[in-house]
């Protein structure tokens, strides 16, 4: 099964950092306070961040080639 990873819709992110707090792999950061970024190398695709995001803008998407 192809791996799913968290993908953030940057334009809609409110940079609240809720996703950062729940990520078990610390794969998310909010650099410069504008929008969150996922380090795809660390993300294990657990989907916790997508559940937590109050704006519901994180999608779990297949990114592997």
């Amino acid at each position, binding site marked *: 099964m192809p791996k799913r990873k968290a993908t953030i819709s940057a334009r*809609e992110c*409110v*940079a*609240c*950092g*809720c996703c*950062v*707090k729940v990520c*078990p*792999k*610390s794969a998310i950061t*909010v*650099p*410069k*306070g*504008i929008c969150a970024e996922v380090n795809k190398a660390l993300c294990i695709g657990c989907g916790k961040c997508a*559940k*937590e*995001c*109050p*704006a*519901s*803008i994180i999608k779990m998407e297949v990114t592997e080639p």
Partner: protein
Amino acid sequence: MKQQKKWYDYLWIASLTYLILGFFNILFAWLGLLCFFIPLLISIAKGNKAYCNKYCGRGQLFALAGGRFGLSRKKDIPKWMRSNYFRYGFLTFFFAMFFLMLWNTYLVFAGAKNLKMAVTLLWTFRVPWHWAYHGTWLSDGVAQFAFGFYSVMLTSTILGLITMVLFKPRSWCVYCPMGTMTQLICKARNVTLSQKIKK
């Protein structure tokens, strides 16, 4: 693997204490200025949202009540509520109301108006709050500001609780004026930064 809890993960206690103190002595409301200036100073000085991302006790309170205690439906917030129109609109409205509150405070300072011992909820409902006022040796305006500021804090908490129940625990963060403003400041700062780099 759970992330290690840090000292700032307990700031929700401070937020809760703040709300409770206002029931006993309204003058404690002045402390709320901290969660007004700290996020602004962090975003202006450091250019990030560390306040939201780490320290905000209110966000933690919603996360706890809505998450741990299950007081949230955990449904997606409607699209219009996370649109920039709504977010910036709410920010504008919030500040308009804030300045109105400051103006009223000024009038009391100036002696043009009498102190109103009430907390105004949702900018409409005036709730008597005289039990929390035991007089001050300072101007009445000091107390008026406390009542006004506590109204702002309580109103935003109520709104936050409503959206917490209806949507996700921290739905308030989507349209929180402080969050929107600090994000705007960060954006503005980084525009100027990248312009500097280009030069």
